[in-house]
């Protein structure tokens, strides 16, 4: 049993500083912000697999597009059309390109969904009013608190670091 202590900041800067300090002290943190915060990335570094997936999608798209056109028009059912060669690479280019973009976009999108665990219709902190405001105007710092009783020192700490309001959320 434990709890998340949510600290709402009116501004990004104090939150990021607070996060930096607490992380130094070994706390488990997460930041919730109304818009992407590059400084936050530095406090909580992490990878993104999206670019790699997108690249693979794109490469696959080109290959599939090219192979299929060859197979359909030059191999599986070749028909004399306008006296043109059955296997004519220049005419394959546009569709290869489109397939590249399409598959790249889809794989990027799927990777994004998977990485963010979307769609996810509930969230452990969803009950907290403060938490709900992070999409509106609050910069919310969530600190993991492993002990039974909420600790005044941590709350005072957060107040000291500039948290406007606090909202502990116990694990259910």
């Amino acid at each position, binding site marked *: 049993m434990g709890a998340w202590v949510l600290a709402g900041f009116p501004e990004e800067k104090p939150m990021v500083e607070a996060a930096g300090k607490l992380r130094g002290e070994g706390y488990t943190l997460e930041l919730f912000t109304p818009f992407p915060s590059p400084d936050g990335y530095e406090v909580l570094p992490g990878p993104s697999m999206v670019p790699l997936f997108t690249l693979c999608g794109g490469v696959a798209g080109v290959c599939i597009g090219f192979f299929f056109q060859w197979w359909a028009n030059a191999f599986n059912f070749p028909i004399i059309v306008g006296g043109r060669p059955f296997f004519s690479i220049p005419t394959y280019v*546009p569709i290869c390109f489109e397939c590249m973009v*399409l598959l790249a976009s889809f794989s990027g999108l799927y*990777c994004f969904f998977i990485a963010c665990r979307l769609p996810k219709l509930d969230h452990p902190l969803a009950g907290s009013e403060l938490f709900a405001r992070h999409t509106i105007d609050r910069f919310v710092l969530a600190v993991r608190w492993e002990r039974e009783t909420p600790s005044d020192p941590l709350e005072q700490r957060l107040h000291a670091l500039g948290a406007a309001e606090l909202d502990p959320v116990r694990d259910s």
Partner: protein
Amino acid sequence: MEPQATGTAKSDALIEGEQSNLSLHQSLLRPVWQPPGIRFWALMGPATVLTGIYFYSAFLTVTRGIGEWGNHIPVAWAFGIVNFVWWIGIGHAGTLISAILLLFLQKWRTSINRIAEAMTIFAVMCAGTFPLLHLGRPWYFYWLLPYPDTMHVWPQFKSPLTWDVFAVSTYLIVSIIFWYVGMVPDLAALRDSSPKKYQRALYGALSLGWRGSTHNWRQYQSVYLLLAGLATPLVLSVHTIVSFDFAVSILPGWHETVFPPYFVAGALHSGFAMVLMLVIPVRWALRLEHVITGRHLSALAKLAIATSWLVGYGYAMEHFINRYGGDQYDVHEYAARVTGHYAWIWALMITCNVLVPQFFWSKKLRHNTWFLWFAALLINVGMWCERFVIVVLSLYQDFIPSHWRDYAPRLVDLGLFFGSMGLFTLLFLLFLRYLPPVPVSDMKELHHELKKEAA
């Protein structure tokens, strides 16, 4: 803060007035929460009627045949294709503004990209219906797709039309993805500020349960940037491929190597014009002057000047190559455009596309929203004329004089054309009603950055 009087938009700020995250949040989501006013219904009525006309015309076309249109031999393509190219062209500015300007770190794109993208999607939808209705046997449209059919015949991948199918459908899908991904955080914001439970449920579902954690934002930014990177060449490819429909043929007036860049330029031209036509009334009606400021409008106007020169170059090149090549069929075809009895359409095209935008050199006119709006309207008229000139005026007098024949649209043609505008308006109004017209989180971010810069 109160919206300033429309008519002029002097300021050069990207965000006007003293704003905070909360004020932005409230002002930008107001259109979704507040009940629609009389203005909304005043537009909704005619839009619905036109949409009805559109579907009735489509019904006639499908049940009675293409004979209901004005098309004939030799002018086997006319309004259907003209409207298709026109709409698809309009559908280009959206993705361009949001993708390319994003890559070029153009801050001013932020407040208008959502509207522009919505415009793109609805325009491409309208565009997409025309090639389908245009088929002699529309119910077999799926034969264009590569699927193993009973005849074991595949699509013919040498045909530009097959390329079109791939290009347009890809463009529509990717545009929708791009638009939706960009909207996810705002949907979450809607969810968390929805006054009613069902709204919370609705927007919660739409937002896919998005939470603004650092991890999520990281993934988000990376996918959004990549989509932008993919959409950029895609935009260029789509109208390039549309131009192949003409450039790949052997018809005088179609068989031109200048077409791909010329078409793309034309598409952007009409696209920016359309954005102007939409943004000007929207910022006024939805009281968004503080985020869509005079600076945005004049930036769009400047882009229009640039694109006007690009299309102007295209026209000049057509003229030059025609004279330089001197092929008798080309020469006649061009003469028929410029001096034939459809010459007025050609003249209208030149005036609206090349001359009208030159007024934007004047800062005063650039900041006069009324002028901007009418100029934009004219540009779209001009771009429609351009497509008419290319499609119809190349067909009606080609190689064999015995088959020359003039073209005139019939009622169903007009019904579909104006009806499609109604359909577009309808979809756009619904978008304004139920979705955030301006990207909220982006605006907050921009606001934040501007403050940083200021500090």
